[in-house]
């Protein structure tokens, strides 16, 4: 590399700036000493320190110096480039310098914050500064590329998050495709009876939004559909969607449901998934009266015609719109969109994974979602609380934190269970008059009017026992426990172990990532946190963005959250997508790789290595070709290329080697 080294007298004129960051940096690094040291390094024409370099005066100082001292390169030693690289690039541009003639040195996170010895930290800051000054000389003038953005948006998941995001985008005039895996939109919220803390009916506030989706001229609704494949990049995604057959033509069915009456099965006899298996349905069914679209479908597992081809098809005969099509096949659709909002929701914890509570063994044990259906007027019992054995419960125990805050299952707090348990306690008491016991670890009610709701429940005479329930058994120790389910719990307020006999146990199951969350995250090229929820770009400052540009997340697919937070997040995700689309273009970082064609030997080593599928092979020229729009600048290809014919902007050999030499000097 030495032959490439600029001669001492021809060195570009470098400006070096070091930031105190208040006391963040200055308390651990002798800023003045680093400033003085840098001023003596070859090529450095100006060296200054300042309390807040990112402030307006700090930036202005840099721009002014560039003009007055005819600076040709810029180095700023401050915080992480994640925070202020763009700020100083802009300052360089204001001074008339190409923004890529700039190198940032992170002496805060990499030095000041991680060391305890001021002398060594100062020495490390000097090393880092020297390395940056050595590398910046080799920087080239670069431009950001602009790529146009397709204005259409895809929203995946038709729960309240997806519904709200789709409506927001559509109301802003964007064309939206909303995809839902189930036969109807509505998600979990459609199963709920009332919502906390206001106790307004879930269907009454949700179904108008569902109808609005269906009627909106800007929304294409694809239910019973799943995303198969995602290709492309920010602003230009190509999405392949699989539409499962309903065996009923969606455009012809009007949802009169006469076919359901006409079905050869006179009685509904198959477990109804929407009602958590508590009710029954026929092979031809609709999930609930307000299902959207209001189109029936056939269950291929139970429909005689679909299973054997030997049914008299009285359903089809009853349909005067001729909507039935027993030969309907899976359909593949391709969409072109600029942005994607993922709102794929959550899965309720499988209560069988906590066997001490007897779910699946004792018929009197229910999950919270089952109770939502039991107390619902449109549920299997029309809102009457009846046990599986037909009796009415006189006492009900609600166990909080099942599959939450538990080292054996899930460690996280599911955030909504305390509140929905209060809501269910209220509804059970209202519908049945039973004594209701809540068994909680801590009562978490940190939302608007939530604590007040808890207070209201205390006043309603619901019993609250602080303690994690040890077990639910049918083991009676006393005559009044006979025939009951007994909850054994350490009452941590009273300080002794209690046994509470009840007729019905409700397990407040926690929220988990969807079973296929890992598959979905790979398909959309985003990340998952260790617990399996989708990973946001920044937990505080970019909560709906992902590490993949143009893909946003909303609702419980990111973490457990309640309806108000979900709706707020869905709105935020829609706004982020709008900001992307309305800019009309995206600017791409120029730190991409390119192939020096005459040096490429056509070995194809790089092609399979690229994690972003940005490299193709030109079979005519026998050369690798890199799509700079797809390239994320990870550098894998440049490092792997055996002939050294792949170069990466800002990571040229000269730049890297001089940086290493600078640091080792």
């Amino acid at each position, binding site marked *: 590399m030495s032959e490439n080294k600029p001669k001492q007298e021809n060195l570009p004129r470098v400006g070096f700036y070091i930031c105190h960051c208040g006391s963040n940096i200055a308390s651990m690094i002798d800023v003045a000493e680093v400033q003085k040291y840098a001023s003596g390094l070859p090529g450095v024409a100006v060296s200054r320190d300042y309390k807040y370099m990112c402030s307006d005066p700090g930036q202005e100082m840099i721009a002014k110096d560039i003009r007055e001292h005819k600076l040709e390169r810029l180095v700023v030693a401050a915080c992480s480039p994640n925070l202020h690289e763009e700020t100083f690039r802009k300052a360089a541009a204001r001074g008339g310098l190409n923004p890529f003639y700039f190198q940032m040195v992170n002496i805060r996170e990499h030095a000041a914050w991680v060391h305890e010895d001021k002398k060594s930290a100062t020495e490390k800051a000097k090393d880092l500064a020297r390395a940056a000054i050595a590398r910046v000389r080799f920087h080239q003038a670069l431009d950001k590329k602009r790529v146009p953005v397709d204005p259409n948006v895809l929203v995946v998941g038709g729960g309240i998050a997806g519904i709200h995001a789709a409506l927001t985008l559509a109301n802003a005039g964007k064309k939206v495709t909303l995809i839902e895996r189930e036969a109807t939109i509505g998600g979990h919220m459609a199963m709920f009876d009332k919502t906390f803390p206001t106790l307004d009916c879930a269907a009454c506030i949700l179904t108008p939004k569902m109808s609005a989706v269906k009627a909106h001229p800007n929304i294409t609704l694809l239910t019973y559909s799943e995303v198969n494949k995602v290709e492309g990049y920010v602003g230009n995604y190509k999405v392949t969607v699989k539409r499962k057959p309903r065996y009923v033509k969606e455009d012809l069915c009007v949802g009169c449901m006469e076919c359901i009456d006409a079905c050869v099965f006179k009685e509904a006899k198959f477990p109804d998934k929407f009602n958590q298996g508590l009710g029954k349905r026929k092979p031809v069914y609709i999930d609930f009266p307000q299902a959207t679209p209001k189109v029936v479908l056939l269950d291929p597992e139970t429909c005689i015609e679909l299973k054997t081809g030997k049914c008299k098809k009285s359903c089809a005969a009853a349909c005067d719109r001729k909507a039935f099509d027993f030969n309907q096949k899976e359909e593949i659709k391709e969409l072109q969109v600029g942005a994607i909002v993922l709102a794929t929701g959550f899965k309720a914890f499988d209560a069988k994974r906590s*066997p001490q509570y007897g779910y699946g063994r004792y018929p009197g044990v229910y999950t919270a979602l089952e109770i939502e259906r039991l107390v619902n007027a449109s549920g299997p019992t029309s809102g009457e609380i009846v046990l599986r054995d037909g009796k009415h419960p006189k006492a009900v125990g609600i166990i909080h934190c099942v599959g939450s805050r538990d080292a054996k299952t899930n460690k996280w707090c599911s955030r909504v269970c305390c509140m929905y348990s209060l809501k269910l306690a209220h509804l059970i008491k209202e519908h049945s008059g039973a004594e209701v016991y809540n068994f909680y670890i801590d009562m978490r009610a940190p939302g608007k009017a939530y604590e007040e709701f808890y207070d209201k429940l205390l006043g309603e005479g619901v019993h609250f026992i602080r303690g994690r329930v040890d077990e639910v058994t049918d083991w009676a120790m006393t005559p009044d426990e006979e025939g009951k389910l007994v909850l054994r719990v350490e009452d941590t307020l009273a300080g002794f172990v209690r046994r509470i006999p009840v007729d019905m146990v409700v397990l407040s199951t926690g929220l988990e990532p969807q079973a296929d969350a890992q598959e979905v995250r790979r398909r959309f090229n985003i990340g998952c946190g260790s617990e399996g929820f989708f990973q946001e770009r920044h937990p505080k400052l970019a909560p709906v963005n992902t590490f993949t540009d143009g893909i946003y997340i909303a609702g419980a697919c990111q973490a457990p959250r309640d309806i108000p937070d979900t709706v707020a997040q869905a709105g935020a995700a829609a706004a982020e997508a709008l900001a992307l689309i309305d800019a009309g273009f995206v600017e791409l970082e120029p730190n991409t790789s390119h192939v020096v064609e005459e040096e490429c030997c056509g070995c194809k080593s790089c092609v399979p290595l690229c994690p972003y599928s940005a490299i193709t092979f030109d079979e005519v020229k026998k050369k690798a070709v890199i799509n700079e729009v797809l390239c994320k600048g990870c550098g894998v290809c440049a490092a792997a290329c055996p002939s050294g014919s792949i170069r990466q902007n800002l990571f040229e050999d000269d730049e890297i080697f001089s940086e290493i030499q600078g640091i080792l000097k």
Partner: protein
Amino acid sequence: MKYLYFPGCSLKGTGRAYEESFLAVFKALGLEVRELEDWNCCGATAYMSVDETKSYALAGRNLAIAERSSDLDVIAPCSACYLVLNKTQKGLKENPELRRKVVNALKAAGLDYKGKVRVRHPLDVLINDVGVEKLAKFITKPLKGMKFAPYYGCQVVRPYSTFDDQYNPVTMDKLIEAVGAECVSWPLKTRCCGGSLTGTLPEVGLRLAYILIKEAKKRGAGAIVTLCPLCQFNLDGYQDKIASKYERVDIPTLYFTQILGLAMGLPESELGIKRGIISAEAVLAGR
């Protein structure tokens, strides 16, 4: 299939019926069992609370001998032995400082331990190595019409759930069904039998044992089936004392190896059936 066998003190003393039936059943199934040479006390749970390091070394000696003699799995039928040997295995694997001390102690006795031994419970071997389907082929006299309460006790599933669930273990339930008997549904499968409290604090220990036998009887079980010699001892041996303090229950407690042996047509005399204090004769007469 071949295994090493670590009897521990119980199977040579109060739990002789367990040893007899275990060896008879394994032999009849064609499973070769060789007793570990020169084995010593496992230390049980008591020594662990007196001097942990020495207790690891004591149990570690058995593992070292097993490793030296072969690469076979070690079967420990007694729950305390099973737990202590597993705990030692785990402790030596995860704690380098402890490992260093124990291996040094073993070296002084001319032994070494690399950590390769697998400690197994005979129930685990029967269900997971042999399998219910293969067992069914050996069942010649199914125990039709009999009802048993499966009782696992604490140590086999806690704190390590090595081969079954901690709250609701089911392997012995499968075995009871495999021998053609009915498995009583009861929630006390892993509730305390009284442990050593029957000796040290009888007013507590006897009550715990009483709860179990009473509930098993109440649910229609003809006998309790267990896999632990201490559980068997507490449930079977104190029924007179329980009768004088609470009420007479009279329910026999058998080992799972005994009911399997009976269903396989092995003679009662080889299975130690008559060793029980509460006679199983009346219950088994219905076969």
